[in-house]
């Protein structure tokens, strides 16, 4: 089993099997996004408290979830680098960081736009908002570190250590709404027992979440393939691949 995993994770085989997978996820993204946006904007009923403004949730919550999820993936890869010296994990961190930063920025901006009509302010220094902003700085910091470490040997270990230090922020973001009772509302979906949201509002949200996840996977595969192309540019199999084009 380990032999198979190693084979699948080698740059050459990855480059081969990731191509159809990428197109599959791209298709999924389009399908989920179309259904999700249509049902979120037009089919879901307006919230009895927030009116139609709550429809921002279909962008805000998936991107906030992804901002944490992507950092968790990066931390897992950092662990793979530090403990098992796994080569491909560095490529994944490099591909994931800008995507994570985009999701975090999106969560902050849509939250701000949502906050204006609901709370009467674009921004407050609430625990959830502040820790999410810190997450954005973490992503930017990791990206800056990667850029300035370019071409240095064993730079992946340094990036991995930085990613792992920053992981402290993830539980803080996640639990901030329950630790500090502030303006930001509590969790509505990730309560497994009984989500405090009605089902015809929930389904578009779950579909949008699937859309964001497929988008992330598609972009990850795309960026990873580019990165492999660059790192393996001197190997013979790349020349064969390019010969087919």
């Amino acid at each position, binding site marked *: 089993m380990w032999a198979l995993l190693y084979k699948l994770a080698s740059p050459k085989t990855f480059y081969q099997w990731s191509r159809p997978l990428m197109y599959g996820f791209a298709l999924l993204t389009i399908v989920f996004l179309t259904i999700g946006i249509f049902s979120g904007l037009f089919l879901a009923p307006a919230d009895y408290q927030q009116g139609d403004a709550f429809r921002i949730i279909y962008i805000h919550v998936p991107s906030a979830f992804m901002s944490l999820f992507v950092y968790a993936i990066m931390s897992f890869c950092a662990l793979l680098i530090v403990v098992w010296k796994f080569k491909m994990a560095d490529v994944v961190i490099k591909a994931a960081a800008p995507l994570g930063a985009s999701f975090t920025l999106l969560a902050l901006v849509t939250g701000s736009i949502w906050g204006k009509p609901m709370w009467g302010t674009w921004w407050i220094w609430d625990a959830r908002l*502040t820790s999410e902003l*810190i997450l954005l700085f973490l992503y930017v910091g990791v990206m*800056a570190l990667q850029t300035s470490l370019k071409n240095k040997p064993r730079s992946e270990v340094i990036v991995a*250590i*930085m990613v792992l*230090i920053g992981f402290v922020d993830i539980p803080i973001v996640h639990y901030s709404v329950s630790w500090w009772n502030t303006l930001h509302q509590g969790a509505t979906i990730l309560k497994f027992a009984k989500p405090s949201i009605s089902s015809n509002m929930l389904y578009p949200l779950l579909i949008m979440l699937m859309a964001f996840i497929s988008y992330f996977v598609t972009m990850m595969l795309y960026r990873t393939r580019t990165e492999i192309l660059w790192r393996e540019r001197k190997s013979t199999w790349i020349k064969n691949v390019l010969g087919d084009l």
Partner: protein
Amino acid sequence: MLAHWLVTGLPFILLTPIAAFSLHCSMDEMWILIVSLLLGTPILSAIGSIVVSLTLGLREGSVLLALLLLPVYIPILIFGAGVVNSFSLGVSPIAEFALLGAILIGILPIAPVASASALKINLG
């Protein structure tokens, strides 16, 4: 790392009573503040030592250092400030103490190892 804390953290804690009295804090608040600083400043020194060794020898080192330290310092500062805040509001600050203590226990054994390996890569 210990030396760094001795020259930056310790004098700060010794100065706390003076600052506290000039800001009209009560005696209890001052002791709480001192405990939170005792827990918090070693964390700052430990994280600082790791991040500095990560960016050592880089051209954009100093800017990068600020960018990387900012997000990891802020949570610690928030918890530290939260201690006095919740105490002065009459809430028990034990939750913030526990968090600071947990982070301190977590970071202390990791910091020397992480700094050492980062230094080895950057300088070796």
